[in-house]
């Protein structure tokens, strides 16, 4: 009888210990479960944060590409400084040429006036010579008529 009693005590002690162990295992699992839940929530937040960062990065990339696209087009056009220089040079040439034109025109005017003076002088001279000739003709004619018509 003592041995059966002690056997019963022994198995009850074992069951109590197993029960304790199970309780502690449960607690452990609960703890792990809560930890995992926390880390899942943390991961969700990180994902949301990363998504925002991706959107931001995409926006930046888009801006950069827009800039590049415009820059490429602008590169095709010649440099502003060069164009300004070319414009200046052309302007100066234009001024120079217009000065030349002015001086040539002045010279032309002067020559025209000189020619005019020359021509009018020639014309006057011609007139004078003609007048002289006419006068001398008239004189000759008078002389001739006086010779043919002697004393009355």
């Amino acid at each position: 009888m003592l041995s059966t009693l002690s056997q019963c005590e022994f198995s009850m002690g074992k069951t109590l210990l197993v029960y304790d162990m199970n309780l502690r295992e449960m607690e452990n699992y609960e703890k792990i479960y809560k930890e995992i839940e926390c880390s899942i929530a943390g991961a969700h937040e990180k994902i949301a944060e990363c998504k925002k960062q991706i959107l931001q990065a995409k926006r930046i990339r888009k801006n950069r590409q827009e800039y590049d696209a415009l820059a490429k087009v602008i590169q095709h056009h010649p440099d502003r400084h060069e164009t300004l220089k070319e414009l200046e040079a052309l302007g100066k040439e234009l001024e120079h040429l217009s000065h030349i034109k002015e001086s040539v025109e002045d010279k032309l005017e002067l020559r025209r006036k000189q020619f005019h003076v020359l021509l009018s002088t020639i014309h006057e001279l011609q007139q004078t010579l003609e007048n002289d000739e006419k006068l001398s003709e008239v004189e000759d004619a008078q002389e001739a008529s006086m010779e043919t018509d002697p004393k009355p």
Partner: protein
Amino acid sequence: KPHRFTEVFQALQRLHMTIFSQSVSPCGKFLAAGNNYGQIAIFSLSAALSSEAKEESKKPVVTFQAHDGPVYSMVSTDRHLLSAGDGEVKAWLWAEMLKKGCKELWHRQPPYRTSLEVPEINALLLVPKENSLILAGGDCQLHTMDLETGTFTRVLRGHTDYIHCLALRERSPEVLSGGEDGAVRLWDLRTAKEVQTIEVYKHEECSRPHNGRWIGCLATDSDWMVCGGGPALTLWHLRSSTPTTVFPIRAPQKHVTFYQDLILSAGQGRCVNQWQLSGELKAQVPGSSPGLLSLSLNQQPAAPECKVLTAAGNSCRVDVFTNLGYRAFSLSF
């Protein structure tokens, strides 16, 4: 016997179907698709995307005869679906459409010059700032209609041939239109005048005379505009009217849109093309239709779980892309 006849008839219909337009519901959970027979089908995106989706979820919740002719264009306001095609624009209440035997709320016809031929409406555009709708199509004019009173407030004339597509430049507010005459025209809504014209086919970089000069698709992102069709798909800087990038694809594109840092385009050919602004092709994802006519991005804030890209065109199917990288599945009429 009559049952089999309708089955055969429906199968034939599906074979020859073209889906011209799509529109997402304001709640983001439904997608409307309009086809060449004048029918509109409403699909439940939330059902088709859920984990318990079955084959029936990919069929329409309801299909009804909306117009006598093809439904070329559809847009949604916060409560209504507006559809247009055969010269008339009709309004439907989203909340009512899911019930059978839905009737249109109203229908309006813009004042056309001739009452003999009723020109088709190819494009609709909502202008939220002034609560109006812009219609454009076969009569080469843009008509503005006030959504509250239903009166037609302006007529914008300038195009010399019919108009295919419209886009809204929110900041100004300006409307861009493109059409058969090969020109993209910018209209200032306040002065009702044309403020800028870009004759795309006149630019050597993008013109493709063997395809024609028609502008089939248009999209704008404040300072930038992308357009395609006969000429090559090109990115333009609006203020300087210069073409900055020509996208190297031979097939004429019929729909184009800006999305994040990409440009999405589709047209002749199976694929949805994804482009970087630099002109590089990032990805080409094949769909189930031999050609695509419309793309729709569901960005409704009320349904982030239904955030998908849908593509439809020369078939009875609407491809759904949950991720821009591959086609997840297709809805079908």
